[in-house]
């Protein structure tokens, strides 16, 4: 008889990785809302979050929290740089959306290769934030980094919700997402909001990378799979809905974990996406409905 006692453990694993997918998905939504662009450089932000933190921590001896904060700031600045150097010129020339999406994909590849040149191809990792034995609930082990991932993700979602609901800047970004022309007529600096959206999105990607790296490894080429999963999370949640993207990430993480149990890792993505496809047939606009 099959032993299914490990299923709760599997669900915990799925939730952990799902939170990371969700954060990346939110990053996609923030930029999409401000600009209508799907930013495929999102994976590079995840990779750089972990990589810069690791470099500052291991090579330069900075304390981990300082290294992490510096990495988030650096990646946010890079997000603004991509907006200014790659997206803005195309935006000003009224390039089609496909061109801008392609440009972000090119940016992803450039960042990946520059990272390879700068730090080499060896996988690297970070220590867990709190090095304690896992918390045991029955037979389910809850690693301390899992608590950091889930707690950190929920805190960020709550902070983002407060930012968009309570601050003038957040409200201005929401206004841009509803109607950019009308927002501009109201005196909202739309182009500055676009830069801010890139900074915010890049910072979210970096935080996701910093949270997940202690449970696995980082290398120059880890970004793309995360970007794909985050993109799927954003679609499942209802593209343009940050909270929906987070829920989409959780759903994707759980589906992938269960798919490994039922079908094996080889068919994990196929199985998970098939279920999600069925879900989208029933509800094409995603969990919370598309933003527009």
């Amino acid at each position, binding site marked *: 008889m099959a032993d299914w006692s490990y299923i709760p453990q599997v669900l915990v694993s799925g939730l952990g990785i799902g939170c990371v997918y969700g954060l990346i998905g939110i990053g996609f939504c923030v930029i999409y809302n401000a600009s209508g662009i799907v930013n495929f450089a999102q994976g590079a932000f995840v990779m750089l979050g972990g990589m810069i933190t690791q470099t500052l921590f291991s090579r330069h001896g900075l304390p981990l929290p300082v290294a992490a904060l510096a990495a988030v700031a650096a990646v946010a600045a890079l997000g603004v740089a991509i907006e200014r150097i790659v997206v803005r010129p195309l935006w000003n020339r009224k390039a089609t959306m496909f061109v801008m999406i392609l440009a972000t994909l090119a940016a992803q590849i450039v960042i990946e290769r520059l990272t390879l040149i700068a730090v080499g191809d060896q996988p690297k990792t970070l220590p867990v934030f709190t090095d304690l034995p*896992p918390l045991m609930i029955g037979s389910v082990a809850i690693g*301390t980094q899992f608590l950091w991932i889930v707690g950190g993700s929920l805190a960020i979602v709550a902070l983002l919700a407060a930012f968009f609901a309570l601050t003038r800047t957040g409200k201005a970004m929401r206004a841009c997402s509803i109607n950019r022309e009308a927002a501009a007529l109201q005196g909202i600096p739309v182009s500055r909001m676009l830069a801010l959206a890139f900074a915010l999105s890049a910072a979210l990607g970096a935080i996701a990378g910093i949270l997940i790296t202690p449970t696995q490894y980082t290398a120059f080429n880890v970004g793309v799979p995360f970007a794909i999963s985050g993109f799927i999370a954003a679609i499942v949640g209802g593209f343009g809905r940050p909270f929906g993207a987070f829920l989409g990430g959780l759903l994707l993480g759980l589906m992938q974990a269960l798919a490994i149990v039922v079908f094996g890792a080889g068919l994990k993505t196929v199985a998970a996406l098939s279920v999600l496809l069925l879900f989208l047939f029933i509800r094409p606009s995603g969990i919370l409905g598309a933003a527009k």
Partner: protein
Amino acid sequence: MKTSTALAAALAACLASALPQMASAQDYKIGVSAGLTGYAATVDRAWRDGVELAAAAVNAKGGVMGRKIQVIVEDNRSEPQESVTVYRKMLSSDKVDVFVSGCVSAGNFAAAGLLLRAKVPMMLCSILPQLAEHLPWAFTTLPPAGFEVDKRLEFLKEKTQIRKIAVLHDPTPYANLQKTVAERNAAKYGLEIVSIEQYKQDDADLSVQISKARSAGAGAILKIGLGGTTLTAAKNIKQLGADMLLLTSLEDLAVFGPVAEVLGDKFFFVASPSQVYEALPNGPLKTSIKAFLDPWREKYRDRDPNWASRGWDGVMLTVAAVEQAKSFEGEKLRAAFEELKGFQGTTGVYNFRPDLHQGITDNPFVLATIQNGAVKVVQ
């Protein structure tokens, strides 16, 4: 007048710069299809560097039969489809004479038919192609897959009380081959495989597979596959609080350092002779490794020598075959490879035969661990 003088000087400069190009038409061209990006990047970049180091060493001594070696490297992105493209490019555009290609097994399989038609032999890092018709043109520096597996099973039997084990492998042909060997040989060592799980090289989490293995009662995991996932597996084992040993296949020492920090004395790995050079007794093997390791360390310091050492072997075997054949022609080189016997390489002694294109026949591997940052042989 000044203008015409300047033009003449420019023309002369152009001609002068073209001369080395013309001379290079006489170079002996070694093509390398390597996964410089993708999951095999770590090992194949090292393989490429080993090939280039060996070519430089051969060229410094005058080349092979008077011709300098030129190494042409193309990135197959660790993908079979891309491998076919780069092999085709190197055959048709670069007119490569022989291939000394990297560890992406599926890519080398996919391109084997091209080489058969072009009558160009390949010396590989990976396992040999699976189709019998492709075998005559393919040779490998890789010891049989069973060697890596047997070394770990032997250790578990002799040094531990663990009798139930799990296999965690990636989907590459080489990993699947090792998995099959493990299934076949485990009982011989009194071991039972209670869980066989696959993972993908870009998986961010392996805790589901490890949870299944633990639930099935496995006391040790035989991990088979390349890349940073060994680190992920180690981290996941620790997060799950699982009391399991992790025994991994050949990999870069740079990956093993952080893994050992996570799992401590619960981590063991299969090591090649070049990775445990200091622990080897004096003899032909150590001398052969030294010939490679001296220039390697001079250029790359403490970078892992394993994959590069076999890349070095790949070039040196090719040079030996060319000199034995006294010809650069593909068919004669292929025949010479089949007759190479007693060649002392950095991984062991190569003995090829017409019916044996996997030259290493004695298990050269050891099982090692890392204690206080230093590699220590345990089996």
